[in-house]
């Protein structure tokens, strides 16, 4: 048996014994996700146990080095782990901005001390992070941000306002972009800094969305003390890191185009809801829409796979994260528009137990943000046109 086969067998055995039964079922709803953090209320004991067991093996961040608490898996092993998790339909043990965004940025740009301080608590699900990039006047034009960090020797004093801070009221720490040199050219005077949300002067205020929930905040910074040893990379060189981090964010958001709803494909949901006549959905227009969508989804999934394989083998154009973000989010929006057509008037019910608290219409509305967050679709198309196609 090859090493990889042995690894697969061990992994399979371990998962068999350690993944609670209830963590192998997906529910159509947000409670599948586990965010961790100081104040996190687990949806169930199983959810907690599952996160802790995976964290103990470092498998909440499987490809991070073991010295920072990660799983230390190479690409092939990581792929095996993903396949084995998918095989038993296991839920993700921990989802967090720490794992998706600031962790990878720290691994690439952070000092040894910052890595030691911040990475292990992310892996263990102890600290939950939020992203302080956008401001009222700086969205697509992120480099135009105004929140200032004034140099006070060993620390900065931060003042300004951030907005659209996802989970700002639930997070423990923020990674934040501040203007630390007001004289320099736009992109040159920005630093990426880290601070505890409990630091005096940090005030997140929830904003209610069209979905009715309040997952994000406007965050006010009033004379917030930020230690200089919490600057990632060099002072005033934060823009490069911010962009690197955005690449990760885009890939993650784009990947949502691939997530089945409650483990069922659109075609299966449609067949169940509408019924079949002689093996065909009895609404030909809707049938065509569902099939067209599934074909696009299949092509998108294959493209995500191909891009990964090309990177592994050193081929390809790179810089494809903008394309994956653009196409994946537009695809996810289409998925939910089609789902609404399948479910008819039932799909618009906003409250009550039968509708699982209006899960579908609320999630449908949430997907509208997919093509805005992490850089809008238009911005992705700009990136493709300029960076890949060379159109000035």
């Amino acid at each position: 048996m090859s090493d990889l086969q042995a690894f697969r067998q061990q992994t399979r055995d371990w998962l068999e014994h350690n993944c609670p039964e209830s963590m192998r079922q997906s529910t159509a709803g947000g409670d599948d996700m586990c965010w961790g953090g100081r104040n996190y209320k687990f949806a169930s004991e199983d959810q907690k146990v599952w996160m802790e067991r995976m964290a103990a093996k470092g498998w909440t961040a499987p490809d991070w080095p073991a010295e920072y608490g990660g799983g230390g898996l190479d690409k092939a092993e990581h792929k095996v782990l993903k396949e084995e998790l998918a095989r038993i339909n296991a839920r993700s043990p921990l989802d967090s901005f720490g794992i998706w965004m600031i962790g990878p940025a720290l691994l690439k740009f952070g000092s040894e001390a910052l890595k030691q301080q911040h990475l292990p608590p992310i892996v263990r699900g102890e600290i939950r992070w939020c992203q302080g990039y956008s401001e009222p006047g700086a969205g697509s034009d992120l480099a135009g941000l105004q929140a200032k960090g004034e140099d006070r020797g060993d620390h900065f004093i931060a003042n300004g306002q951030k907005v659209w801070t996802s989970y700002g009221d639930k997070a423990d720490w923020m990674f934040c972009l501040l203007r630390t040199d007001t004289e320099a050219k736009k992109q040159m005077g920005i630093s990426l800094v880290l601070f505890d949300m409990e630091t005096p002067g940090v005030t997140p205020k929830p904003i209610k969305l069209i979905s009715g929930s309040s997952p994000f905040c406007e965050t006010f910074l009033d004379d917030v003390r930020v230690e200089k040893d919490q600057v990632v990379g060099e002072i005033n060189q934060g823009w490069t890191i911010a962009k690197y981090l955005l690449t990760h964010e885009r890939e993650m958001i784009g990947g949502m185009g691939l997530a089945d709803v409650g483990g069922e494909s659109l075609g299966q949901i449609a067949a169940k809801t509408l019924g079949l006549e002689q093996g065909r959905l009895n609404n030909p227009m809707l049938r065509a829409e569902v099939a067209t969508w599934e074909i696009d989804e299949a092509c998108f999934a294959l493209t995500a796979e191909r891009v990964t394989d090309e990177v592994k083998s050193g081929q390809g154009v790179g810089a494809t994260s903008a394309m994956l973000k653009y196409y994946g989010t537009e695809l996810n929006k289409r998925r939910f528009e089609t789902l609404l057509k399948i479910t008819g008037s039932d799909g618009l019910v906003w409250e009550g137990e039968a509708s699982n608290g209006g899960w579908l219409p609320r999630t449908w509305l949430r997907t509208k943000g997919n093509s805005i967050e992490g850089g809008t679709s238009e911005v992705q198309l700009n990136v493709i046109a300029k960076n890949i196609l060379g159109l000035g």
Partner: protein
Amino acid sequence: MALVLNQEQQMLKESAQGFLAEFAPLAELRKQRDAGSQTGYADNLWAQMANMGWAAILVPEAYGGLEFGHVGMGQIVEQTGRTLTASPLFATAVLGVTAINSAASEAQKTELLGAIAAGDITTALAVDEKIHHAPAAISMTAVKQNGGYLLNGAKRFVADGSTADKLIVAARTAGEAGDIDGISLFVVDRSAAGVEVERTPMTDTRNYANIRFSNVAVAEAALLGEEGKGFAALSATLDAGNIYLAAELLGIAQESFDRTLQYLKERKQFGVLIGSFQSLQHRAADWWSQVELCKSAVLKALQAMDEGDARAPALASIAKAKLCQVTELATNEAIQMHGGIGMTDEYEIGFFIKRARPAQMMFGDNHYHTDRFAQLSGY
């Protein structure tokens, strides 16, 4: 299997690029058309291709072939989409080889595949009888008689039908139009008595034909495989056909994109390059993204054939449907972004749309394959 080309496949792609640029560039298509060519390609082109082994790529080694596989062959066909090169490659080296290899007896394979691999014979596949693809709707008949068969019926939209040496014909030995059972495949000489070929040039100036069979008598040995059980082999052949058409369309979508992108960087209006207009940038970026999706769909489908993957039929329909969709976009955008010059015969960009549509239509367009995908998916 990783979704990338290996070194050998990459080399084949590059050598195909080089060969086609030299011997069968787009200018050759214009030349053939203006000269009123009956084939659409230069007389010695097929001999050259066969010399390089292209006729033998899909033929198993046991029958004198190279057995190099579909991913490799797919690279060549994709390149022929970039240069709009007509040749017997598709009808003979893909359709003929696949049909014979899927259905025929050892003796037939030895004879026919050997001859194809050597470049000695060409074939054409005669399936459709109506203006839309419907492989089960065959009503052409083959009636057993005197130890052989008597064929009657008519076929249309037969690629290479006016030039091929051998016609591979789907006819009904039992049942009626719509039945999957009862379809049989026959190899018929184009020159046989009772075969009437009407050449029907289309927008791409290639040599299609409508063919009428009136009391055409063939020997029992002309039957490929088992009587009445030809649909499986026909289906496999059509899947392969659609995957290679998708590969060719991928070449068309890419080449029309590359040429248009180049034009966006050359043409000036209002004192600036037209590529600086955001409305065109966004359409170009979307087009590019769509082509990326197409590349993945085609490569996966080619790999699936090499691996004997049971999902090959679904992947064939995914690839063909998507490529029809995107090539329609690509060829229309190509003309629009060129403005008036895109409408002229003198400029080459207009050739792509004229080849794309017959390739899209052949063996089922976007609607056909979206419907088939839904059926294969159980709805």
